[in-house]
């Protein structure tokens, strides 16, 4: 019984290590500076989860679901939580085109002012689809790193995008597991 327990512990530890390791062996720690602005790309509900993870990680963050370029003042890192939600877009009075405009303007301003971009995809398979994928394909190439919940990358969509742009990718098993790499990503 004890041996089984130790084996199980080893497997769990190994899984945790594997799940956090970047796929292409690139640098994923200390890449970003604080403070950070968290917003969504697609008005998804996971943006709130990202804020809770940032809080638990002790990061100096601001959450703004519909952030504009003006909110990037004094910000060092822009965190975009990827995933389109029709419900969220409706609640915000936005459609996909307007949301894309907002996000791209934000990214352009960040690029111009030397603010780094970190992307998260925390919604798993449920937060994939043509609209989300189209948005991600535009946004992700501008990112410095991506953290993704594995069930959202079962088709290798994020892997292919990140490999083609040499963007470090960290896959985690569950949403809560994203906290550790998020914390380590910041100086």
């Amino acid at each position, binding site marked *: 019984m004890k041996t089984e327990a130790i084996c199980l512990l080893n497997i769990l530890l190994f899984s945790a290590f594997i799940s956090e390791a970047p796929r292409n062996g690139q640098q994923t720690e200390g890449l970003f500076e604080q403070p950070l602005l968290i917003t969504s790309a697609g008005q998804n*509900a996971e943006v*709130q989860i990202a804020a809770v993870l940032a809080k638990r990680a002790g990061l100096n963050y601001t959450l703004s679901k519909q952030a504009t370029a003006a909110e990037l003042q004094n910000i060092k890192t822009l965190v975009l939580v990827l995933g389109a939600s029709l*419900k969220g877009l*409706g609640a915000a009075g936005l459609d996909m085109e307007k949301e894309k405009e907002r996000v791209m303007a934000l990214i352009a301003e960040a690029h111009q002012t030397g603010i780094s971009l970190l992307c998260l995809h925390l*919604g798993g398979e*449920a937060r994939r689809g043509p609209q989300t994928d189209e948005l991600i394909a535009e946004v992700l190439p501008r990112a410095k790193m991506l953290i993704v919940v594995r069930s959202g990358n079962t088709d290798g969509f994020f892997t292919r995008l990140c490999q083609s742009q040499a963007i470090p990718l960290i896959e985690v098993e569950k949403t809560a597991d994203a906290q550790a790499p998020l914390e380590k990503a910041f100086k």
Partner: protein
Amino acid sequence: MVVAAHPLAVEVGLEMLRRGGNAVDSAIATAAALNAAEPFASGIGGGGFMIIHLARLNRTTVINFREKAPGLATPGMFEDKGEAKEEWRTSSGLAVAVPGALAGWDLALRRYGTRTLAQVLAGAIAIAEHGFSVSSTFSSINKDEYERLLKNLPEGSCYLNEGLPYEPGDRFRNPELAQTFRRIAANGIKEFYEGDTGHRLVAAVRAKGGILTNDDLALYQAVELEPLKGTYKGYVILTAPPPASGGLHLVQFLNIIERWPVQTWGHNSVAFVHHLSEALRFIFADRERYLADPDYVSVPVEWLVSKEYAAGVASRIRDDRPLERYPFGEYKPGNRDSANTTHLCVLDGDGNIVALTQSINDFFGAGIVPEGTGFLLNDHMADFADDPESINAPRPGHRPLSSMGPLLLFRDGKPLLALGSPGGTRIFSSLAQIVLNVLEFGMSLDEAIEAPRFFSFSSGGKPGPIAVEARFPPEVISGLREIGQEVEVREAYDKYFGGAQGIMILRGRGVVHGGADSRRDGVGGGY
């Protein structure tokens, strides 16, 4: 046979039937089990409607257990909150109407059941205690509502997993709900309406800015009503009357459609979707003009469901393009258009049938759980109108207008179909499409439920877009756009359009079919 939105609830309902309970016993056992297994959609913190067919008596009746506004409610209670009114309507103590579910279950059991409340709660207690593996539906809804839940739930609540939404496969247990059901089983519904559980409920509501009192709870009563009757090409529809609007609108809708050659047009063809969408736009104007709680407001039901009225509407709809204006109505599409609510159907060996729709309104209701009770409170005060001048404005003791529409469809005097769905204001449109899929397009019940759906509405006299599931053929979408319809493409199987459950009884073939919606976790079971 039992069909419901969670397999564990179906199993509880079936077990009740196996042990000799009738359809009413089984339906209430299933309804309670859904509180444990699908707690985000319904439960004792909410209310609903059920339609019961008693085979031996050939009699059909309706139990109205819709929530009521507290005695201190006023027409302007939300308007006074200014820009924050939406928040108050849905995520605060003011959002909570007096729950009716337990009173309704109890009334049905006492009049038409054969088991005690304690007996029918046993299955729910077991599910709440032992827990279950969270589905992707549960997980995605938990994530969608996370912000509201963070606001209202206490630390350590079972509705979050260590403060974060549940992932598919996580274990969900609710021992506090099991304890609440045990207290109710021991003390009867007085435990809820006058006892310790009720006092906790009132305290929780008032702590979040609500106005509900112990007297409001003690005075609550579920009531029995005559069903609303409609017909479609010789089939008879019996459904819940106002303050449920779903059944009435379904009858209106089918009356209009009856005049059109829908088989010639073809299922989900451009002509079919165009004409039905136009009809929906007229019906939504009626909804805001005429419908409210008939205990206090005179609702012109007979006129609205008359064939003459339908003929008038049908004559105004153009074949070739949408109208520019529709009758003015105050309907506002919610910006929180989730498919909340749940529906179940039960058929027993004697031919008794129950179709029951129940809800706590938005998924996870107001997000408020009375301390130590494990159940979520509704936000059904949000179903009252914004406008203090509206006939459906909140007033003491009024029941808010509901979109529910549990129904039974009869052929030659015998039940053919039991049906219902969640889906907010999409309910009647979705139910009508399922009925047409069966009656006009010859689909099996399951095919009829799974077929792609669409929806439209009007607001302030202007047309809303036609929302279609992504499975609609591109040529139909482009065809609709070519004739001037705005089309909004949603997900392929979108919860927005509901999650219907039904039972079809094919007497000639001695076959019973269950149909459950894959837009949610619906399943059916029989023996």
